[in-house]
């Protein structure tokens, strides 16, 4: 175990613990409301609370901006992140790896499922054009890519994936209000189990509020959040196929993989 590395929030000096907080209380602006904000922050465990601004956001709502200090300390050294074993492959390299190690095209299907129509994210991963200068999967000669678009029912996506004997299914979920993305994702996994692809195909979940942990919890093989590049996904899928083929150790961690 490494040495401890205790850190606190940094305002303008090391370890001063300065934070900025803002919130609304459902009370009219008044001196009493400011007192309430002060008390609220104290109950949050903050010290040297300065209720900087108290604004009449509406008749019965006051918006507060607070600067305060927090005694919270964390040990940075104790935060666990998996060690990178394999360096991410570039475009040419990855295609070559598929050609040589798998010997057939890797087949992926993707869609924005349920009632979600936010295709920009899944398009960024799948379409030729790609994202932030990184080519999309359609561009990879050794990938066979199907982008089913938006509002695709989960059952249909899975059915099509079976038809195509896909290696991976990519599900995008952007609307998250009241956790509708979780509900929909759960439904997807149930359906995947029903249709017998769970554990057989690589199931990926992506979207701005998706992270790897959440995806694993929901029953996917991985989750990809904001800023994901197509090449991250391409690498992940290839590694998964290699692992299923027994050509790579399970659980190998490579650069760019979600953590």
């Amino acid at each position: 175990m490494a040495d401890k590395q205790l850190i606190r929030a940094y305002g303008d000096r090391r370890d001063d613990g300065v934070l900025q907080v803002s919130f609304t209380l459902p009370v009219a602006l008044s001196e009493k409301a400011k007192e309430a904000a002060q008390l609220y922050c104290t109950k949050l465990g903050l010290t040297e609370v300065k209720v900087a601004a108290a604004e009449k956001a509406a008749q019965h709502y006051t918006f507060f901006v607070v600067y305060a200090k927090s005694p919270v300390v964390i040990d940075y050294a104790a935060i666990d992140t998996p060690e990178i074993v394999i360096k991410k492959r570039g475009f040419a390299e990855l295609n070559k790896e598929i050609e040589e190690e798998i010997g057939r095209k890797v087949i992926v299907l993707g869609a924005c499922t349920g009632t979600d129509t936010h295709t920009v994210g899944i398009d960024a991963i799948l379409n030729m054009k790609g994202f932030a200068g990184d080519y999309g999967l359609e561009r990879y000669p050794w990938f066979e890519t199907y982008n089913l678009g938006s509002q695709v029912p989960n059952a249909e996506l899975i059915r099509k994936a079976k038809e195509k004997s896909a290696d991976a299914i990519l599900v995008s979920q952007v609307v998250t209000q009241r956790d509708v993305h979780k509900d929909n994702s759960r439904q997807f996994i149930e359906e995947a189990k029903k249709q017998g692809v769970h554990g057989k195909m690589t199931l990926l979940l992506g979207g701005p509020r998706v992270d790897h942990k959440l995806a694993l919890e929901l029953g996917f093989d991985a989750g990809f959040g904001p800023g994901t590049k197509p090449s991250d996904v391409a690498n992940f899928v290839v590694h998964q196929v290699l692992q299923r083929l027994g050509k790579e150790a399970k659980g190998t961690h490579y650069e760019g993989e979600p953590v």
Partner: protein
Amino acid sequence: MSGLFVTDEQVAHARALAREITEPIFELIGRNTTVSVERTVLRWFGVDGVGNLGAPLVNLMVDRLQAAGVLNRGAAFWYGRALRMGATSPLDAVERLTAAPLERLAPLSHEDEAKLRDEVRAEARAAVDELKARVAKREALKREFPMPPAPHKYVIVATGNIFDDLDQARAAAQAGADVIAVIRSTAQSLLDYVPQGATTEGFGGTYATQENFRIMREALDDESEKLGRYVQLTNYSSGLCMSEIAFMAAYERLDMLLNDAMYGILFRDINLRRTFIDQYFSRRICALAGIIINTGEDNYITTADAYDAAHTVIASQFINERFALRAGLKDEQLGLGHSYEIDPHRPETLLLELSQAMLVRRCFPAAPLKYMPPTKHKETDIFFSHVYDSMAHLVAMWTRQGIQLLGMMTEAMHTPLLADRYEALKAASYVHRAARGIDQEFTVKEDGLVANRARFVFGKALELLEECRADGMVAAIGRGRFGDVKRSETGGKGLDGVVEKASDYFNPFLDLMEGRA
């Protein structure tokens, strides 16, 4: 304010192209009706409520007529027929119609049929008058509580629960909002019926229902009075129930509606024919009810790149304008949509955005215009996001936008919190106050980046319009010319709801609105 960029003749040419492009579509519209148009007719006669299984009566009735293959005569005809059968109320009419074997009813005598039509027409006229009286009430309120000058600050509420929405809408009004938009639950567009009653369970928005409209407008009437300033309400008239919602909104005195001739086709994969037909009837209602429509060109550049696709916005605005004018809307009702969406990491984006907004203003001098804030390139860094919006506030004032949707600093995360709206309103008020009159202060250099870009974009818009004229709208949409989305004439949802009119098709509302009765 701005330069001219292009000649009046060039602008007139674009208008002429739009007219030619839409001609074939109007033929299509003239020849057909849809289930939702017919449901609207029934609603207008006062058919309301739901059946045992929760389906709206208008759906039960129209489905019945369609199943019987007789919808092509018009629901109004059958409504009249039911009255003739002795129906004492709209509800009674529905029951009688759904019970009767419509296919096998004996035809009416020429005289009876004429009588039926007269009666139904009279009833329609009364219903139209009632609607007009309701609209007059809105106009009176507007006179009593004058609105501040434009840009009108437009914010959304989207909790999913109409009662939470009420709180938020009132708060927003108190914080300075001029227009409240209740965002619809995701994918309501795809429902081929309108839900009933007050609703509390939407996702990313609240269902558009007549009752939700009513209670929200009631709350805003109350706020308008308290604040001494009329607060407008808007919702969505798009999707499979476009015209029904337009009617409900008109009836409940909404002030604006999101209503686009192509949005459903492109962004909801609703059938092209269905959309074109529905939009026409919905716009006729908006024209009658003095509702400002907001078109959705801004959506194009959330999928396509805003810099590359700038001309598609302009071309589409000319088309949307033509569809609207043909439906009887006035220039003052045309909240043509555009938005501040160029990637902020590029250089000179403020100049490019000014160019685009000035060009829109140049082409549509009398329209209020609806200006959308940055959304696609918003960052989760709320501080940056807030500043990014401030430049849109400036452009809105500079180009005299009528309706300005306010960007939210949390756009990249969640539907707005109460505080987000408060801060957006405060920021927009500041920039508007600070910059009011800026359009009178500066002249655009005719050889600068702003002017040259405007000319370039206009030129490409003309090319696209020429292409649409040459090959037809259907072909252009098929090639993904708008919003990078490709659709075919017979694809998409809702085509089965399109019905060719019989020669004796009867729709007294359409007749009245088209000035034929």
